[in-house]
């Protein structure tokens, strides 16, 4: 029921005209027709107003239910992804293990071409497995509330660990690798495993998109210019770069900059979405500066022992 309180000023005739007008338009006049001086107060209600109000309320309820269902579906989707990728790992593990048993001649000697063929089976299976691991990590981070386990660590050590993990790839491609850590950088206070995950992911992308000839990757750790007591790590490469119009999109799940690149460069398109999740959980920022053909510069921030809780971070 819609109710209006009207106050009409002016000669009494005006009130009468108003009453007729309202009645013609379908209002019910519930008259406490009190007069105060020349003012007239009246409560009116309108049936059609009532109905449209009710249908608006119903619509809001329906939207709310639909939203709740979407959220449930999203959790269900992530759980499904987690289950499927878990199930996919088992047969792949068997393929890899049997492959290695064969490759290493435990069931009889292989000639060189046979060994190469088996090695290809193993290599491809491991590649598939690492993609499945990525999907699993993503699904777990979005299906369940992830709790951070913050510890104190030195950012320089973290960069060294990340470099060591990719050292063979860097060497194989002949990429130059430089690190700069600001003097007096405070001790980090964050979930080390997750920050390491972010850094190795960015490093992996940089390695993949940097040319073998003249490739250069620079990792810099410094105090954040924007947020006092926060650490900012940047990973810079001189590779193919990313068109600014794609900058926001690449942090979304399942995104690949374009399909031709997807064909050239494998990957699930989940790495950066996971990285973003992990950084946002810390209240930090992640982003990039890049132009096509001019390399990319990714950065992310995380707290140190000197950080004060941030306000308005998203």
């Amino acid at each position, binding site marked *: 029921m819609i109710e209006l309180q009207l106050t009409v000023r002016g000669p009494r005739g005006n009130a009468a005209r108003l009453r007729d007008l309202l009645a013609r338009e379908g209002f019910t006049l519930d008259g406490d027709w009190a007069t105060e001086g020349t003012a007239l107060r009246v409560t009116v209600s309108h049936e059609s107003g009532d109905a449209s109000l009710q249908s608006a309320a119903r619509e809001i309820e329906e939207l709310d239910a639909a939203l709740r269902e979407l959220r449930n579906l999203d959790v269900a989707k992530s759980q499904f992804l987690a289950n499927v990728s*878990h199930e996919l*790992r*088992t*047969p*792949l*593990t*068997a393929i*890899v*293990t*049997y492959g*290695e*048993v064969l490759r*290493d001649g*435990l*069931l009889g000697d292989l000639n060189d071409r046979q060994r190469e063929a088996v090695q290809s089976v193993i290599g491809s299976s*491991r590649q598939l*497995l690492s993609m499945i*691991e990525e999907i*699993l*990590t993503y699904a*777990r981070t979005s299906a369940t509330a992830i709790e951070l386990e913050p510890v104190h660590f030195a950012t320089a050590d973290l960069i060294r660990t990340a470099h060591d993990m990719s050292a063979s790839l860097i060497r194989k491609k002949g990429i130059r690798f430089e690190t700069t850590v600001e003097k007096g950088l405070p001790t980090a206070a964050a979930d080390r*495993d997750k920050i390491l995950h972010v850094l190795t992911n960015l490093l992996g992308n940089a390695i993949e998109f940097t040319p073998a000839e003249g490739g250069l990757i620079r990792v810099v750790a410094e105090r954040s210019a924007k947020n006092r007591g926060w650490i900012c790590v940047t990973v810079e490469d001189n590779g193919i770069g990313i068109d600014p119009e794609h900058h926001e999109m690449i942090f979304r799940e399942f995104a690949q900059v374009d399909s031709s690149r997807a064909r050239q460069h494998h990957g699930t398109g989940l790495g950066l979405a996971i990285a973003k999740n992990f950084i946002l959980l810390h209240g930090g920022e992640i982003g990039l500066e890049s132009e096509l053909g001019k390399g990319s510069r990714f950065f992310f921030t995380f707290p140190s022992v000197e950080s004060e809780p941030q306000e308005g971070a998203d």
Partner: protein
Amino acid sequence: MTETKDKLPLVLLVEDNETIRGAFVILLEESGYRVRAAATGAEALSVAVESQPDLILMDLGLPDLGGLEVTRRLKADPRTSDSVIVALTGRALETDQQACFDAGCAGYLAKPVDTQMLLKTIPEYLGTENAK
């Protein structure tokens, strides 16, 4: 190897997937170990008590008892507490490595295990790397 068949180290492989179990049995037998296998936690407990293996490779995702629970029980039982137990599982985000050590595992290997690495590591766990 020059030892008699009885002296070869005995490895108990606990893994619920039959195909993967088969692969590891070949790997270990062809590399000179005696191998027993178990598909469930309950089976692992009874085989371990009966055979007292030198090393147990323990898959953590078992259908009945979890691998960590089996490990705790084996470590609490004086008949099996001397067996070295190494956990086999997925990657670090899933299982707390500390939980493995707390349960009594001597080590932790991510699946799919690199078989060459595994064969290199087993003697270290058995403390026999110098005995060869």
